[in-house]
C-alpha cells in the first residue's frame, strides 16, 4: 500500500501536464472545437493531435518492446489517461486504446506488421463496428453477414451507433460468418478499409447537438488476410480487449475537471453578490462531490495497481467505469443545480456561465448511461461475474 506516486511517476505526470498545457491552450480550445459535427474537437484537429501523441511516445508507452513500445506500467498509462481527460484533449479513443491491444492479442503477424507501426505514430483512426439496430446490449444478436468467397469475405449489413466512423481509416468490424449455430458462435472479426467500395456512412444528429453515424456495408469485399483471430470465434476477440477499453474510459480525469470547474465558479468573486461557496448548502454539496471524485480517482488507480501487479481484474473494470460515469453524471446534475437561474443558458448565449459547458455535458453525458455497457447492464455484469449471482 503506497498511495504516494514514485518520483518517476510524479515526473511523468508533470511532463504530460506540461505537454498538454502547451498543446491545449485556451486559444486552441477556441479555434478547434466543433460542437456541431464532433461534439468536441474537429476531426482534423483530432487527427493532427493524435500524431503529436505518437511523436511524444504516448501511444505506445505501455506496449511491449517487440512492437516498438515503451513497456511502461499501467500506473503510467493511467496517469496519461487521467491528464488527457482532465485537459479535455482529443485523440484518446479506441484508435489507441482498444484496437492496438486487441490487435496485439489476436492479430496475425502480417496484420500487426502492417498496422501497429502506423497506430503507434498516431496515423490511424478507427471505428468499431459492433452495435446494430437489433444488437445493442444483446450484442451477440448481430445480423451483419460475412460470406466467404474465394480469397475474400463479402460483408453486408448495417452498423449503428458508430462513433467517429466519418473520420475512420479502418473499421474493426464484427460480422456473422455462421448463422446456423448459437448466437455467440459464428461471429468473426474483420479489419475493413473504409475506402472499400460498398461502404456508406449516414449521419444522425444527437440530442447533445453533435452527429453520430451509421455504417452500411453493401457487398464489401474484405481479403481473408484481414480476418482477425479464428473464423467463427470472433466473440473472443470482441470480449478480449474490452477490459482495456473500459480501464481507459474509467479514467477519473473528466470528473476531476468537472469538479474543479464547479469549484472555481463557486469561488469566484462577484460584484456585490455573495459567492456560492459561502452558502453552507453549497459547501455541503461540494464536499459530497469532492468525496465522490476522490472515490472515482482511487478506484481507477486501484485498477491500474492490480494490472501493474500482473493481476487480471475483470468485473472490477466494469465497476470502475460505472463509478466514474455515475460520478460524472452527479457532477452534471449538481452543476446545473449550482448554476441556478443560469443553468439552461446554452453555449454561445449571452450570460452563459462556463461557456455553457455544464448544460452541454448534461445532454452529452446521457450516453454514459447506455454506451460501452449501460449502467444497468453493468450492474448485471458485476452481480453475475463479480458476485456470482445466478443468471
Amino acid at each position, binding site marked *: *500500500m*503506497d*498511495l*504516494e*506516486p*514514485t518520483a518517476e*511517476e*510524479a515526473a511523468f*505526470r508533470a511532463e504530460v*501536464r506540461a505537454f498538454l498545457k502547451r498543446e491545449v491552450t*485556451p486559444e486552441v*480550445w477556441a479555434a478547434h472545437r466543433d460542437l456541431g459535427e464532433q461534439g468536441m474537437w474537429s476531426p482534423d484537429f483530432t487527427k493532427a493531435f493524435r500524431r503529436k501523441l505518437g511523436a511524444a511516445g504516448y501511444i505506445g508507452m505501455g506496449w511491449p518492446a517487440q512492437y516498438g513500445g515503451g513497456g511502461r506500467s499501467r*500506473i503510467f498509462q493511467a496517469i496519461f489517461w487521467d491528464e488527457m481527460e*482532465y485537459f479535455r484533449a482529443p485523440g484518446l479513443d479506441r484508435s489507441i486504446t482498444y484496437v492496438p491491444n486487441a490487435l496485439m492479442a489476436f492479430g496475425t503477424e502480417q496484420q500487426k506488421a502492417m498496422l501497429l507501426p502506423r497506430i503507434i505514430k498516431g496515423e490511424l483512426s478507427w471505428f468499431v463496428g459492433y452495435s446494430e439496430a437489433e444488437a445493442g446490449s444483446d450484442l451477440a444478436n448481430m445480423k451483419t453477414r460475412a460470406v466467404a468467397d474465394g480469397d475474400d469475405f463479402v460483408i453486408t449489413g448495417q452498423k449503428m451507433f458508430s462513433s467517429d466512423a466519418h473520420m475512420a481509416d479502418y473499421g474493426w468490424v464484427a460480422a456473422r460468418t455462421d448463422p446456423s449455430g448459437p448466437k455467440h458462435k459464428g461471429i468473426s472479426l474483420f479489419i475493413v478499409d473504409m475506402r472499400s467500395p460498398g461502404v456508406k456512412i449516414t449521419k444522425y444528429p444527437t440530442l447533445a447537438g453533435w452527429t453520430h453515424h451509421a455504417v452500411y456495408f453493401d457487398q464489401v469485399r474484405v481479403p481473408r488476410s484481414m480476418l482477425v483471430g479464428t473464423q467463427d470465434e470472433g466473440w473472443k476477440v470482441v470480449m478480449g480487449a474490452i477490459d482495456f477499453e473500459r480501464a481507459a474510459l474509467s479514467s477519473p480525469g473528466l470528473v*476531476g*475537471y468537472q469538479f*474543479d*470547474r464547479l*469549484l*472555481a*465558479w463557486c*469561488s*469566484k468573486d462577484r460584484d456585490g453578490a455573495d459567492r456560492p*461557496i459561502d452558502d*453552507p448548502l453549497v*459547501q*455541503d454539496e*461540494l*464536499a*459530497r462531490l*469532492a*468525496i465522490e471524485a*476522490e*472515490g472515482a480517482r*482511487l*478506484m481507477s*488507480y*486501484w485498477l491500474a*495497481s*492490480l494490472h*501493474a*501487479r500482473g493481476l487480471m481484474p475483470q468485473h472490477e473494470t466494469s*465497476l470502475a467505469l*460505472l*463509478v466514474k460515469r455515475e460520478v460524472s453524471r452527479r457532477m452534471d446534475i449538481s452543476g446545473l443545480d449550482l448554476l441556478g437561474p443560469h443553468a439552461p443558458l446554452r453555449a454561445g448565449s449571452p450570460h452563459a456561465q*462556463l*461557456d455553457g*459547458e455544464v448544460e452541454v455535458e448534461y445532454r452529452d453525458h446521457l450516453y454514459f448511461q447506455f454506451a460501452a455497457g449501460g449502467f*444497468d447492464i*453493468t*450492474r*448485471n455484469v*458485476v*452481480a*453475475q461475474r*463479480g*458476485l*456470482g*449471482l*445466478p443468471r
Partner: protein
Amino acid sequence: MDITLNEDQALIAETAKSFAQSALTPARIRELEETENGFDAGVWREMAQMGWAGAPFPDAFGGSGFGLFELSLIVEALGQGAIPSPIYSSVVEGGMLLLEAGSEAQKKAWLPRIAAGEGLLTTAITEPAGGLAPGQIRTEIARAGNGFAINGTKLFVRDAGAAEAMICLGRSGLRPEDLTLLLVPGDAPGVARRRLKAAGGEALWEVTFSNVRLGADALVGEAGGAWPHVAQLLLRGAAMKSAELVGIGQASLDLTLSYAKTRVQFARPIGSFQGVQHHMANVYRDLWLCRLLAWQANARLASGKPAGREVAMAKAKAGECMPALTRIAHQVHGAIAYYRDYPLELYYHRAIAAQSAYGDAGHHRRALARLLREDLGRFRGEDPHELPVHHV
C-alpha cells in the same frame, strides 16, 4: 503508487479475518452485549498474544511494529466478525495518545502492559453536549496544591468499567484550546460511572469527576497543550471506524449474497432477479469505494502527514453508505433477518454505532467545508491542477 495490499499486509488481513470469524459465536457475541464490560477477556488476551494490542507501538514498548495501517486491517476484520474488544479504548485512544503525548515514564509504565493485554487504558474526551470541537469541553481542570482537581462529566467513554485508568481531557484556561490531559486511576475518589445502553457492541459509559484530586505526575503532555493530540486521536478513531464500517459492510454483503444464492422463491433463487442483482451491485460498489477511502485515510495517518482531508472523506462516505448497505441487506433477506437469531442484526446495530463515533458524516463534511474555505489546496488534494480559470 500501489493501491493494493502487499504480501505482509494481505497476510495480516487474512489472519485477522480468520481469527475474527471463529473467535466467538453469534450467540456469545449477543451475550457479551448484555455484560458490563462487553468483551471476552480471553479473546482479548489471544489478540494481544498475536501482537494486535501493541500493533502500532515501537518494539521498545512491547509493540509488534505493524503500524497504523496494519492496525486498520485488523479493525476491519474485527468489524467483519463483530468481535467486541478494547482495541479502541486501549490502543487507538489511550495507548496511542500516551505514545504521542506521554512522558517516557508514562509510556514505560503503560505501553508494554497494554501491548500484553494486561493493562487497559481509556480516554474521556466527549461531553454531554456531544460536540467534538475544543470549545465544547467544559470539564474543569484546576491547579490544586502541587497537582490538579477535575470536575465535570464525560460521555461515551469506552470500556470505563474495565479500564484501570483513563486519560481525561479538561479545560485549564479560557481560550477554546486551553485544554489539558490528565491520567486518572479508575479507582480515584470522586470518579463515578454509569453504563450507557447503546446500539452496537461497545461498552460506553458516562463518567463523572467530582473534585478528583491528582498529583503533578498525572499530567500527560504539556498543560494547555492537549488539543493537537486529541484532534489527532479523533482523526485516528474516525479512520479506524471507517475501516470497521467496511468490515461491517463486507459481513452484511456476504450474508446477503449467500442468502440470495440459496433462497428459492417463484422456483428461482432470488439472486437471479435483476431487482436483487442491482441492489447487490450497488452495495458492492459502495463497499469498495469505502474500502479504498479507508485504506487511503489510514495509510495517510500512518505516514504521519496531515490526514484531515483523507479521514473526513473516508468517514463521511462510510458513515453514510455502510448503514445504508445494512438496510438493503435486510430488504433482500426479508422477514428472516428480522429475528435476533439471524446474525445480520449484529451488523445493523454496529453500523449506526460506528457511523456516529468520532464524528458522523455531517461532521466530516463540515470539516471538508472548512478546508474549502481555509485551505483550498488541501481540499483539492495533494497534487491539484491549477484551477481551469479560463472558463470562469
